[in-house]
């Protein structure tokens, strides 16, 4: 956890320190909502996700992003038929998946009207399924998105989709979640000189 926080703070430091030559530094702050879909996971269902992110330019085509996200995971109903009985439905309680991560974005250096990007990232996640014990899971993710300027290259609509992979069982298996979000990002112009 300490190492992870150190990485995050390093990215933030580099983001703020690298463009010293610029008059101002655009720092993108975004709030988003979306849909979280567990892949090949019979024990939890899809749910709504939400979160906040902060992104800034690092160098060349690289941008750093810190993300906090949470999602609900729906209950899963299982139909079982005890011998000699009619079918009954058992509910496996869903729960929540929250995470804090750092992403490395590949995008054009300067804000543009249409600003596509790809990214990879790492995160620490808390998986809390119903009454079962919660687990802290390391996650890696990759995906892409498209930011579309809504107002003077300051306000953007941001559509993003990504695959989050969280190893379990000593890295021999994993939970995978496909996450798609839509958000509004505002580029704060931070004076540098």
């Amino acid at each position, binding site marked *: 956890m300490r190492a992870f926080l150190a990485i995050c703070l390093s990215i933030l430091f580099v983001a703020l320190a690298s463009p010293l030559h610029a008059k101002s530094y655009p720092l993108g702050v975004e709030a988003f909502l979306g849909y979280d879909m567990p892949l090949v996971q019979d024990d939890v269902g899809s749910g709504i996700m939400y979160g906040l992110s902060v992104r800034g330019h690092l160098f060349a085509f690289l941008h750093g992003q810190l993300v906090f996200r949470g999602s609900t995971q729906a209950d899963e109903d*299982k139909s079982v038929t005890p011998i000699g009985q009619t079918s009954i439905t*058992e509910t496996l309680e869903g729960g929540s998946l929250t995470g804090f991560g750092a992403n490395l974005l590949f995008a054009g250096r300067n804000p543009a009207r249409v600003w596509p990007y790809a990214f990879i990232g790492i995160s620490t996640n808390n998986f809390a399924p119903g009454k079962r014990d919660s687990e802290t899971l390391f996650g890696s993710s990759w995906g892409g998105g498209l930011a579309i300027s809504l107002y003077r290259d300051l306000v953007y609509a941001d559509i993003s989709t990504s695959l989050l992979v969280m190893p379990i069982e000593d890295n021999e298996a994993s939970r995978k979640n496909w996450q798609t979000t839509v958000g509004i990002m505002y580029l704060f112009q931070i004076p540098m000189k």
Partner: protein
Amino acid sequence: MIRYIKFIFPIVGLAFLMWGCGLVSGIFTVDYEFEDDIHSSSSQILDEVFESVHVNLNDNDTYHDHKDNLKGIESICLVMDVENHLEQNVSGEVWIAYEHFTTKQAVQDSGGVRIFSGIALGPASSPTGKRHFGCGDVQDILENPDAFEDAVRVGDFWVYGFGNEDTYDVTFSHIVLILNIAAGL
């Protein structure tokens, strides 16, 4: 553009390495219906009985398909109806063992492992004399999950049910074992 691609390929490759071999895997639900009920009574009861059920998970298609790539057990649940036949409270227990035993004492003394206890039942004539236990109910009373997980990995074991008291007469019926297993595809 070419210089960008030079960066992207190694980074994407690194991401795949980070995921390890667990990428091609999933969580699968196995539901195994017990073929018989378990009726058990203590020696103080006329016509003492001691029943058990043999579980062979290999009979289940989902388990059979993934057994060779089984990585772990994510959750365990036992759905059942439990009935008290006496007019006194009873606390039911469920045990597992790799061998077949014919007495409660043998199960407890010879390698059996208790997986559920505190299955509280009221007197037979009361509303709580017969109760249904679902996944949400048994999650709190699951014991020795590691031993249960080991048994699931083996896939072949015996299940016993009886009361915690000296005098008891209980039946565990309509039992379904619901597992969520992590396995390779």
